[in-house]
C-alpha cells in the first residue's frame, strides 16, 4: 500500500545579522571590494522581526494564510504587511535571531558556541516561554565574558551579532582543517538548528510519539565532515538526537534543490516496502543564501528580503486510510539521457509519470514546482519562477493537444499558485505546498497534486547535467492497512447492498 503524507511542519528563522556576516554575496563582497557602498548600505536595508512576521509570503509559508489569500494581496508584498500577524502558524513558526543563537548552542555538542553572559540569560528567559524550546533549555550553557568571545574571535571564530553588536561566537573546531573552520561549523549548526526546530514543530503538529519515528532523512545542502571525509554526513541523525527521536536512525540525501523531492520519493518507497513505518524527511536552511540578491534589492529600494533561514519536516507513514497517498508506482525523474532543453525536462518530470498513470496534465489539479516568492526574484531579474514553471507545463499541454493555446493563462491561474517560499535553494523546491495540498485534498477541494523539484547539478562542477524529480499526491483510496476497509467504504457497500435489495424487491 502507498505511504501517506501524515503531517508537515514549516519554519522560518529571522537572521538579519547572519545576512551581513554569513551570506555569500556579502562575504564575497567583503573580500573583493571591502570598502563598497553596498556593504555600508546593507544594514539600512534589513527588516525588523515584526516586519518579517507580518510579511504575507512568510505567513503563507508557516500556514498563517493560504496561497489563494496571498494572491489577493497586491504586490509588492513588502509594502503590504499584515498588521499583528502571529509568529506561530498552523504549520510552524517564525523564530527570532536570539532564539536561533540559543538553539545553535543547544545543538552544539563540542562547546564551540559561546554566548555573552547577559545575552545568554535573556535568550534563555525568552526560550522558556517557547512551547518547544523550553524542553531543550537544559542543554544550554552558561554565558561567558565578552573578553572570552573576543579572544576566540582573534583565534578564527565567527562572530554572532545582534543589531551589529558582538554577542557570541562560533569557534573553529580544528586548528588547520578548513572543513571544520568556524565558517563551516556555523553554516552546519544553523542548518542543524533550523532542521531541529522544524522537527519539534512536526512532533507538535502530528502528535506522534517521538520514539515511533524509525528513520530521518536530511535533504539540505550542507556538507558535514572533516578533511578525510568532507561530506561524511548524517546531519539527519545529529538533528534527530536533539529532537529526541530515540528510536530513529538517519541518513542524508543530497541532490541540490531537487533533494527534498528525491527524499520524499525515497521515504515513501521505504514505508511502502515495509522497511520502516514512520520516516521523517527534514531540512534546515542555508546561511550562504541569505541576502543572495541583496545588491539588486537595495539598488531598487527594496528591503533585503532574503533575511530568513528556511526549514521543513514531513512525516511519511504507513497508509492510515485517510491521509493523502504518495503514488510511488509512478514518480517522475530526469534521467542522464533526458536532455536539458526545457521541454525535455518537463516531459521527463511531468508527462512521463502521468502517461504511466493514464492521466493528462489537466488531471493534476495543482502543480507545486519551485515555489520561490516573486517579491524576491522579480527585482533580482530572475522573473516569477513558479509562474514560468506553470507556463512551461501549460505549454507542454498545448503541444500535446490537451489544452488550447488561448487557455494558457487560465491554466496558469487554475493549476498553479503564487510563490511564497524564501530563495533558500532546496526549501522552495516543490515541498512548500505539501501542507496546503494535504489539506486541500482532505477537504475534497482537489483530487491530486504534483510536486516537482529541480536541481542545478552543474554548480558543483562534477557534471553539466541538470536534475529533477516529481511525485503525485492523491486522495486516499480509502483502504486502510491490513486489508481492512474504511468507514467511507463500508457506507458505500451498505448503500450498494440496500440498492440491490430494493431492486430485488421491485423486481418481484
Amino acid at each position, binding site marked *: 500500500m502507498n505511504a501517506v503524507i501524515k503531517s508537515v511542519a514549516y519554519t522560518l528563522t529571522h537572521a538579519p545579522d547572519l545576512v551581513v556576516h554569513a551570506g555569500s554575496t556579502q562575504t564575497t563582497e567583503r573580500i573583493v*571590494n571591502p570598502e563598497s557602498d553596498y556593504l555600508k548600505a546593507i544594514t539600512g536595508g534589513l527588516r525588523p522581526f515584526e516586519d518579517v512576521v507580518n510579511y504575507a509570503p512568510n505567513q503563507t509559508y508557516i500556514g498563517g494564510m493560504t496561497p489563494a489569500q496571498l494572491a489577493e494581496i497586491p504586490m509588492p508584498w513588502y509594502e503590504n504587511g499584515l498588521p499583528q500577524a502571529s509568529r506561530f502558524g498552523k504549520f510552524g513558526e517564525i523564530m527570532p535571531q536570539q532564539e536561533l543563537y540559543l538553539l545553535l548552542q543547544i545543538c552544539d555538542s563540542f562547546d564551540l558556541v559561546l554566548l555573552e553572559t547577559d545575552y545568554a540569560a535573556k535568550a534563555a528567559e525568552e526560550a522558556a516561554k517557547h512551547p518547544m524550546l523550553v524542553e531543550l533549555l537544559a542543554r544550554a550553557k552558561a554565558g561567558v565574558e565578552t573578553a572570552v568571545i573576543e579572544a576566540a574571535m582573534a583565534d578564527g571564530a565567527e562572530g554572532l551579532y545582534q543589531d551589529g553588536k558582538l554577542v557570541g561566537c562560533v569557534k573553529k573546531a580544528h586548528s588547520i582543517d578548513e572543513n571544520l573552520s568556524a565558517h563551516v561549523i556555523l553554516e552546519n549548526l544553523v542548518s542543524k538548528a533550523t532542521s531541529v526546530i522544524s522537527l519539534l514543530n512536526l512532533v507538535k503538529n502530528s502528535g506522534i510519539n517521538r520514539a515511533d519515528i524509525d528513520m530521518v532523512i536530511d535533504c539540505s545542502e550542507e556538507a558535514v565532515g572533516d578533511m578525510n571525509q568532507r561530506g561524511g554526513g548524517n546531519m539527519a541523525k545529529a538533528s534527530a538526537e536533539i529532537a529526541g527521536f530515540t528510536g530513529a536512525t538517519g541518513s542524508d540525501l543530497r541532490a541540490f534543490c531537487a533533494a527534498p523531492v528525491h527524499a520524499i520519493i525515497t521515504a515513501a518507497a521505504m514505508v511502502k516496502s515495509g522497511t520502516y513505518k514512520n520516516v521523517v524527511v527534514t531540512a534546515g536552511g542555508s546561511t550562504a543564501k541569505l541576502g543572495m540578491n541583496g545588491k539588486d534589492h537595495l539598488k531598487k529600494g527594496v528591503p533585503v528580503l532574503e533575511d530568513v533561514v528556511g526549514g521543513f519536516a514531513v512525516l511519511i507513514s504507513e497508509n492510515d486510510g485517510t491521509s493523502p497517498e504518495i503514488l510511488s508506482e509512478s514518480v517522475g525523474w530526469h534521467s542522464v539521457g533526458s536532455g536539458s532543453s*526545457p*521541454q525535455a525536462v518537463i516531459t521527463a518530470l511531468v508527462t512521463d509519470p502521468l502517461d504511466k498513470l493514464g492521466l493528462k496534465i489537466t488531471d493534476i489539479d495543482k502543480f507545486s514546482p519551485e515555489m520561490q516568492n516573486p517579491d524576491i526574484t522579480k527585482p533580482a531579474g530572475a*522573473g516569477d519562477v513558479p509562474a514560468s514553471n506553470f*507556463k512551461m507545463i501549460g505549454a507542454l499541454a498545448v503541444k500535446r493537444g490537451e489544452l488550447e493555446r488561448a487557455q494558457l493563462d487560465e491554466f496558469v491561474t487554475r493549476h498553479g499558485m503564487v510563490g511564497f517560499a524564501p530563495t533558500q535553494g532546496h526549501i522552495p523546491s516543490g515541498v512548500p505546498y505539501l501542507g496546503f495540498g494535504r489539506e486541500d485534498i482532505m477537504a475534497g477541494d482537489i483530487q491530486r497534486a504534483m510536486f516537482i523539484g529541480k536541481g542545478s547539478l552543474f554548480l558543483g562542477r562534477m557534471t553539466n547535467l541538470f536534475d529533477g524529480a516529481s511525485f503525485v499526491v492523491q486522495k486516499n483510496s480509502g483502504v486502510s492497512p491490513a486489508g481492512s476497509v474504511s468507514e467511507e467504504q463500508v457506507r458505500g457497500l451498505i448503500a450498494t447492498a440496500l440498492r440491490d435489495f430494493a431492486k430485488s424487491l421491485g423486481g418481484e
Partner: protein
Amino acid sequence: MAEQYGPENVVVILGAAEGEASGIAAETVTAGDPTFAGPLTGVSLGLKVYHICEEEIKGLVDADVYEEQVGMMEMVLDLGEIATEMQSIRSQFTKF
C-alpha cells in the same frame, strides 16, 4: 576569451528567462559589468550579443533542433520584451 579569438569573431548568445535579466547579461558582455562587482568591471568588450529567442538567431538554426530545444520556451518567455531589451543594448554598446 574575447582577446584570445579577437572580439570581432565572438558572439554571445543568451538564454535568460526575461527581458531585464537579458539586458543585464548583455550589458555585462558589451559595456562591462553594470553591477561593478565582477571580473568585467570597467571592461568595455563591445561584443555582439543576442538572445537565442530572437528572430535573427532562430532563422539561422535548424528548424527541427530549434523546435526541440527552444520551441516550448517561445510560449513561455516574453519574446517582445526580450527583443526590445537586446536591440537597445546592441545599439548602445556593440562595436562589431
